[in-house]
């Protein structure tokens, strides 16, 4: 990966792995990345809500991102991380398989989701675009949809 200076148009993205695919979220939404800790199951919640965790004294919901995206589940490993993101004042943890790096993606290398994924996952539009960095594909997530602010929050 070539080091370069970031220009204004570029989006900086925290890239992470889910199964064998690479995903990314806007770095401005990311608050911190934590190792897997105790997560308390919460009854009567959608199954993609893994539960709640303790983040320095605050209770934070945690989403199992693979379940949310209907990917095949695997047991957690040493590399499993929780990415804490904040969207519209709501903080949420997302469990991912591994965090890879921070990427800068220029607007010209992002393709609209329709071009890539037809119909999308389960009819949801979780994907805001796909970044193509020398044939390395980074699927950009639309966080507000992931969290479920606009659809079935409960």
């Amino acid at each position: 990966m070539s080091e370069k200076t970031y220009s204004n148009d570029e989006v900086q993205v925290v890239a992470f792995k889910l199964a064998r695919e690479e995903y990314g979220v806007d770095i401005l939404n990311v608050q911190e990345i934590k190792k897997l800790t105790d997560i308390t199951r919460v009854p009567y919640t959608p199954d993609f809500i893994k539960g709640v965790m303790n983040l320095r004294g605050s209770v934070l919901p945690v989403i199992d991102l693979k379940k949310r995206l209907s990917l095949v589940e695997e047991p957690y490993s040493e590399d499993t991380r929780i990415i804490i993101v904040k969207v519209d004042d709501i903080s949420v943890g997302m469990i991912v398989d591994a965090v890879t790096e921070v990427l800068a993606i220029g607007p010209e290398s992002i393709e609209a989701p329709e071009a890539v994924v037809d119909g999308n996952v389960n009819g949801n539009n979780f994907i805001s675009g796909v970044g193509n960095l020398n044939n390395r594909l980074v699927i950009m997530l639309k966080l507000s949809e992931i969290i479920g602010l606009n659809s079935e929050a409960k």
Partner: protein
Amino acid sequence: MDTNQYMGMFLEESREHLQTLNSCLLELEHNPEDPSVLNEIFRSAHTIKGMSATMGYTEIAELTHEMENVLDLLRKNQLKVNEDIVDTIFKCVDTLEQMVESIASETEHGVDVSTLVKKLVSIAKGESAPVSNAKPEVEKATNNIGVIQKNSVELNDTDIAVLNKAKTSGLQPFEIKITLSETCLLKSARAYIIMNALDEIGEVIKTVPPSEDLEQENFDQSFEIIFITSNEKAKVQETLLSVSEVANVEVNSLDIGVTEEAVEKKQEVTTAAPVTLPTEAKIAPAKAVPSKVQGPGMDKKVKGGQSVRVDIEKLDSLLNLVGELVINKTRLEQIGITHRLTELVETIEQMDRVTTDLQSVVMKVRMVPVGQVFNRFPRMVRDLSRELNKEINLTIEGEETELDRTVIDEIGDPLVHLIRNSLDHGVEHPDERIAKGKEATGEVRLIARHEGNNVIIMVEDDGKGINPNVIKGKAVEKGLISQEDADKMDDNEAVRLVFLPGFSTADVITDVSGRGVGMDVVRSKIESLGGLIDVETKIDQGSKFKIRLPLTLAIIQALLVKVHAEIYAIPLGNIDSTINITLDDIKTIQNKEVILLRGQIIPIIRLADVLNVPETNDTEGNELFVVVVHMGEQKAGIIVDNLIGQQEIVIKTLGNLLTGIKVIAGATILGNGQVALILDVGTLMQ
């Protein structure tokens, strides 16, 4: 100036000052001659004027300005306090409140201040209808005027000694009169800058008014300073004029006329001739300094203490951080024990004490005295008793009792309800009272005090009380209870019927002794705060409403229970008892599982099933634990695997994303950092 960032502060401070105005005006009604009360009122009005002008609310500034004029006349005793004036000022305060609230809600207030302004102007001209209840003492009046108007710098022995010493070491004493420009908005800030400027070139010995008053903007356009410096007069003048918004500076060199005792002591100074000066400075021995202006009310002001305004959210996050600290400490403790590090363990013990203190301090910081809610009631009682033509004396006790901020915010409305009821329906008209052989003036008491982990608030009156038979009759009539039930009821139970929803309707107010206006609303509000309300009453002797509130909503006592691998917290307030049963003790009635407890049939809830707790292998044997809980009259037994123990827990929300999950009331963080969910017993039982 961009004033938006000051908006919050402006609103809060205005409200505070309006509250002060209200209570001081009430005080003034009782003691029309107390100069300290008048001063306090003047200060508050003045501050509001200053702030609103800064913020660009000219109407508020205009109204307060006129108020100030009237108040100033009162202060100088050129006008006597009478009912008309007090009423008018009360009206002004009300109007100001309206305007401030409309600013807060960002709506047009549409309040016309012109009539009030006119009224104030006419009062200031002395056209108010004089009412006889003010009996000013003429001597005192002249005295006061003498003091206020002269306003020249009085020096006491110490000052003179300092000045003399300064003079011998070649420093020049000056008396400086500084006049700020009319348009100066932040006079205290300006005064501060002036002081700083002077400090750089010399030493300020004394100011008139004293520096505390300068800081609080408690002065008119000008103030005076006694100042010593090695610099020339011109230099002083120049320095001062360079400060902006200073309209005029008079610098006079000060010669010291020395009192006779001083002459003897300081030979060399006497040669400087004790001439009285062209300036107004006069020297008086300390005893002669009049202290009358700073009357007895002054200590009241001091009592308030120093305080800082803090956003409640910041306190919450502080509390979170302290909680996290405690958790980390526990972890360190574990490390110390497992690795047998005695030194570490000892240090952690020290730390333990500190964190415990820290935690309790943080909790205390969130506490607010109930006085904040109580202080609006004297005004309300005054207005209402006039309206109702009753004579009522409101006594408030224990206003320093502290409650959690969240509780304080909620408790106001229920109390208003209770007090209104007491005034309206409890206390009788004076003639009626006299006929009953009571004092014409009714007593209403509002009392707050601590009782264990609770705060008790009582609203008491010595009115006609509640007649249980009338209440029963009404309840039966409304179909809330059957006639048989009513017959079985004792008086206490009957009186509590007023808390039933549906009991209170308009016609009840007039027919019965009146209680019942939204009493169910009051009760549900109190209960939502985790409190209880009860009533005691005796016919013709009065009634007493007793509210019991938890100190805080943020921390509760809870029982931790284990269900398979998961831990849940059940609020102790809901728990009756815990019992140990075997599987055989569970019976079924129409396919519903129940147990018998002391002859009572109690339905049981298997928590593991209700919460879909994933099974673990280590299923316990035949023995089960049942936590018997209640909600109102209903009871239920919750079956759990194990009881962990009772613990104080800090309630936290699950966040915006997970609101409204049934059965779960919130979450808490356990000592090991794990999150445990708090059960909502109410919904669990449905």
